């Protein structure tokens, strides 16, 4: 940082004045404690004095220069505490200076962080020049994001019950009047929506199953259903590439022709050669799908930091982003420096970071996950919460845990005899904001399509 920028990013006088006012009028501390962090002070001595002031205030509510001096002397951090404190007495002007000086400190601190971020990105770009460009870009975005966040957002953290109940009441009235936005995000499966009353913003939803249960297909069905209502959706596909996803979406839509009963475009036909009629109908489907706002990131080996950076970028471009889906957890790459931690701990950290991401971006985030093999060794192969437990206590961080289970996968003859082929149990094993229980959908494997043809009977 040049001396000129250093000069413009620091106001020593304002730092002294704030401390002078707080020592003289400790009763003002309650009003500033949410707005001011030690980091707002550039001078390390003043930062320490601020910490001491807060500490003394929390302990006894009383502050004096003598007490501050005594504490500084005990901690032996500042070279000349008397001289430093004398400067504070000299700079004191009046209590009215407090608010403007705090604003100056906040502004200067923000400027310093920006300048530091610029330096860090510059160093990063030079030092990691040999690395993968997208990895460097992701790190740079992280740095910029951190530098542009307000150091203190605590003013919104504490809310009175009146404020909170006001919000609840408005939602209650909106629901009564049938306003759509009063609910969570509908995925247009009445059974699912009935259980969840819509996926809630900031929630992390774990969708887990053993392989071949149809979790990607189910997630894709929900993605398309949401996006068809012109709500932007972001899909991270760490396994399937963009074309595979596109084909699945298209194929999924062809099911409508089969449902109508007069026409059909099968998966095999789509993958080979279509007749004129089929081609014309396929074009119609393509034209409809062109409109829907789905963003696909199909890169393999993404780290959590890269996912976060990309999600933030998309959110900045599409502020009304309504849903994020990640397919799937076990394919997220661990960070380079794991510090010798176990895989289970790392998975736990990834899940926690993704939950924080959902909160930060204010969207529901559906995270697909595989289940461990212990399911297979049981007679009853319906997944249970304990099947997630070996993977970093995922369920602790999740707001909802949903399992998919298809009995016909394990007992095909029985399913054929009873006509329960394609029956999928959607098991709501955990819901912080709703009931647990099971609902059923039908899976039409050829079209990777889930349909809600059952009465909304919830077994709890």
């Amino acid at each position, binding site marked *: 940082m040049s001396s000129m920028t250093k000069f413009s990013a620091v106001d020593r006088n304002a730092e002294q004045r704030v401390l*002078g006012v707080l020592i003289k009028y400790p009763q003002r501390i309650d009003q500033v404690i949410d707005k001011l962090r030690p980091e707002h002070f550039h001078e390390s001595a003043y930062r320490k004095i601020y910490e001491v002031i807060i500490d003394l205030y929390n302990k006894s509510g009383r502050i004096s220069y*003598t007490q501050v001096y*005594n504490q500084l*002397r005990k901690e032996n951090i500042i070279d000349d505490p*008397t001289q430093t*404190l*004398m400067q504070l*007495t*000299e700079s*004191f002007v009046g209590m009215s200076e407090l608010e403007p000086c705090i604003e100056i400190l906040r502004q200067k601190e923000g400027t310093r962080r920006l300048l530091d971020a610029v330096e860090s990105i510059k160093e990063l770009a030079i030092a990691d020049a040999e690395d993968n460009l997208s990895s460097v870009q992701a790190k740079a975005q992280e740095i910029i994001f951190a530098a542009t966040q307000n150091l203190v957002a605590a003013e919104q953290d504490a809310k009175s019950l009146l404020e909170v109940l006001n919000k609840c009441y408005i939602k209650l009235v909106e629901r009564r009047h049938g306003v759509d936005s009063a609910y969570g995000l509908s995925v247009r499966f009445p059974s699912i929506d009935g259980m969840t009353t819509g996926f809630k913003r900031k929630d992390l939803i774990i969708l887990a199953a053993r392989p071949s249960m149809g979790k990607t297909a189910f997630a894709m069905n929900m993605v398309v259903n949401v996006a068809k209502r012109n709500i932007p959706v972001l899909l991270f596909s760490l396994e399937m590439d963009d074309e595979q996803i596109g084909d699945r979406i298209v194929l999924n839509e062809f099911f409508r022709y089969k449902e109508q009963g007069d026409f059909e475009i099968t998966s095999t036909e789509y993958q080979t050669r279509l007749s004129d009629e089929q081609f014309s109908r396929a074009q119609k489907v393509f034209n409809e799908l062109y409109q829907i706002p789905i963003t696909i990131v199909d890169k393999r080996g993404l780290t959590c930091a890269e996912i976060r950076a990309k999600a933030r970028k998309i959110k900045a471009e599409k502020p009304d982003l309504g849903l994020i889906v990640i397919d799937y957890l076990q394919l997220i790459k661990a960070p380079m420096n794991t510090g010798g931690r176990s895989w289970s701990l790392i998975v736990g950290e990834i899940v926690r970071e993704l939950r924080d991401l959902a909160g930060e971006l204010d969207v529901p985030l559906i995270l697909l996950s595989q289940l461990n093999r212990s399911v297979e060794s049981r007679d009853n192969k319906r997944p249970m919460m304990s099947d997630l437990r070996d993977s970093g206590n995922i369920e602790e961080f999740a707001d909802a845990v949903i399992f998919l289970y298809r009995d016909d996968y394990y007992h095909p003859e029985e399913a054929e005899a009873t006509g329960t082929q394609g029956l999928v149990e959607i098991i709501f094993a955990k819901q912080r904001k709703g009931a647990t229980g099971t609902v059923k959908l039908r899976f039409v494997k050829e079209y990777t399509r889930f349909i809600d043809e059952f009465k909304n009977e919830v077994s709890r």
Partner: protein
Amino acid sequence: MALFEELERVKLQFISVCESLVHKERISEADFDQILQLLDNMDELDENHLHDELSRLTKGSFDLLFWEKPIFPGK
């Protein structure tokens, strides 16, 4: 400068001198802690009592340090 700040400056100067006495081993750390306590609570103490206590703790140096002007303006 307001009276409060003026008084605090004098206290800090006095503390600084006392600290140098600690370094010269003229007074003990325990004495120094008591001096700080007295200064911190001086508003609640009788002036004569405060003077006597400070003289005792500083082994008489207090009188030499501030013989020209009273330590507490306005008193």
